[in-house]
């Protein structure tokens, strides 16, 4: 029962700067679904998110493929249309709340600005909506927080403010780019609860970007594992974590400190994540893969559909015949 027009459909998305940054990325997100994008640095997970927000840095071009938000290909829309899409259709919470907020404006001014712009509200009304928005992210002293500046808030409080801003116009899709990576564990748990509860009550879909597979297990319906700008594996969370199809996913799961035993060496993945200019021919993970064969370096494996998901590996190509 797949909706004919998903909320987000990324099809064959390829991005280039001087080298290919993303190659043929396919992702689909249904309304209300949580999709986790997992990857290491340079995997292209943040780049994918920025492309969906229409916020690609200058110099990075979409050279192939499309990003459809509610059926509209947003790789072809102009900035005026983007201003209508951003906030309402898709919104984003960034990892670094300190650099995402304006340091010289109070929280109230920044939040009220959103309501004044989007809904053409007067100053007083906009402030009262801002207060409600802060209460909505469980900030008890919303009134007092409106008067504070970003540096006066803790990291966890700033992230709450960011979430309040991102949800101000009730988007259909929220992108959260490592929203808890810089936070303490107890605060991380709270922010995750907050996001998941807000999702339940507001019904948005969530694209959650992280490097942490343990976290993914608790919040995501589906997982896409990216490596060197490509989707290596995609599938239902339980499937990917309990029965990973790609050797890279297996290696990532094994090398988590949580799966290690005291006094014994951790299983490792040899080598380094290749930078875009150093990507090897064939499968980008080939040189680090313990299951690699000579033909892995000969051609890039296709992303092969599995029963419920997909995998980019010659071994999966063989299985599907």
């Amino acid at each position, binding site marked *: 029962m797949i909706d004919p027009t998903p909320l987000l459909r990324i099809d064959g998305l390829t991005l280039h700067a001087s080298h290919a940054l993303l190659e043929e990325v396919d992702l689909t997100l249904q309304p209300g679904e949580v999709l986790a994008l997992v990857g*290491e*640095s340079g995997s292209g997970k943040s780049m994918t998110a920025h492309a969906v927000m229409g916020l690609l840095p200058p110099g990075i071009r979409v050279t192939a493929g499309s990003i459809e938000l509610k059926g509209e290909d947003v790789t072809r829309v102009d900035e005026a249309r983007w201003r209508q899409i951003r906030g309402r259709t898709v919104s984003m919470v960034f990892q670094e709340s300190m650099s995402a907020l304006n340091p010289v404006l109070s929280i109230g001014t920044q939040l009220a600005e959103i309501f004044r712009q989007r809904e053409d509200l007067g100053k007083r009304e906009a402030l009262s909506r801002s207060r409600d928005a802060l209460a909505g992210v469980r*900030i*008890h*002293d919303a009134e*007092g*927080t409106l008067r504070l500046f970003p540096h006066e808030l*803790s*990291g*966890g*409080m700033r992230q*709450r403010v960011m979430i309040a801003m991102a949800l101000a116009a009730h988007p259909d899709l929220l992108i959260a780019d490592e929203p808890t990576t810089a936070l*303490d*564990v*107890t*605060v*991380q*748990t*709270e922010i*995750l*609860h907050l996001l*998941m509860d807000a999702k339940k009550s507001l019904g948005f879909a969530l694209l959650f970007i992280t*490097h*942490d*597979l*343990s*976290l993914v*297990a*608790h*919040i995501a319906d589906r997982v896409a594992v990216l490596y060197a700008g490509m989707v290596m594996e995609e599938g239902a*969370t*339980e499937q990917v*974590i*309990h029965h990973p199809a790609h050797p890279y996913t297996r*290696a*990532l799961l094994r*090398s*988590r*400190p*949580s799966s*290690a035993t*005291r006094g014994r*060496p*951790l*299983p*490792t*993945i*040899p080598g*380094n*994540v290749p930078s875009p200019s150093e990507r090897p021919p064939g499968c980008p993970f080939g040189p*680090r893969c313990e299951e690699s064969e000579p033909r892995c370096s000969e051609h890039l494996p296709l992303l092969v559909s599995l029963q419920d998901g997909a995998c980019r590996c010659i071994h999966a190509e063989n299985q599907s015949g």
Partner: protein
Amino acid sequence: MRRTKVADAILSGHNLYVSRGGRSILQDVSFSLVQGKTLGFVGESGSGKTTLALTSVGLLSSEQGEVRYKGRSLSRLKGQDLKDFRRTVQYVFQDPFASLDPLQTVRSILQEPLFIHRVDRKEAAGRIRQTLEEVGLGEWILDRLPHQISGGQRQRVALARALVLDPDILVLDEPVAALDVSIQAQVLNLLQDLIQRRSLSLLFIAHDLHLVHLFCDRALVMYRGLVVEEGHVTDLFARPNHPYTRLLLQSVLSGIPGEPLPEISPVDSEEILPDSGCPFAPRCNRRIDICKQRVPPAENRDGVAFRCFRPENEPKRS
């Protein structure tokens, strides 16, 4: 907390106090690092774990109490003794990109400490070659600048810089937090190896409890400048006494698909640090009146020390 095993401690802190701008950052903190062992400092941001590490190696000074190296007070070390201490204790920072000079080649990064400690050129070259091999790097890296190598390689260079001086004590401040998952395991295994091969004593600062469990023999759990619990990691993890230790353990994600997020007692983020009493009291679901009145004294139970008026494992009352 208690001055346990002071005799075999290579480095120990005794009732340390540090404050800044009238705010207390370390409050009556004591620790003891036993020769050849690894002691973890665990806590959230603002807990004082980095301040304690810096104080332990003499990079910050304590207003009261003292740090002792092999039984001698740091404040009394002078001249050559002080220089020797600084060679003996090496600090590896969390972010190798920030801690390595971007304008120096790896060669000069590794030479500098040796020249400061008056090792001659020929011997320096030999030591650098040997140390590079130990941390799994080739000599090709010597002419590179920090931005020309990967994050994992940078952290290996930072380790090599600490090791060229042949230290006895290594302080590792979140040594893998800035690294990718696939690189973390490599660096952690390298650390395990080095600790054993060189019989190093370690102060290990981490917020990841899995890492603390893997690496440390004992750990201090810190909250807002106070050591709330201290003991052998297996005891701490199996039977936490302090509600904060329990909260930290509860926050660890199991990583099992379908399992709900851990339910933890809500943090009142706008809470103001209490003027008196236990700093954890505002967040604590076991608090009683006395918790807000004074800081709980350190109490020992089965080799674990903790500061709590109403610990988790209270003996059963019939």
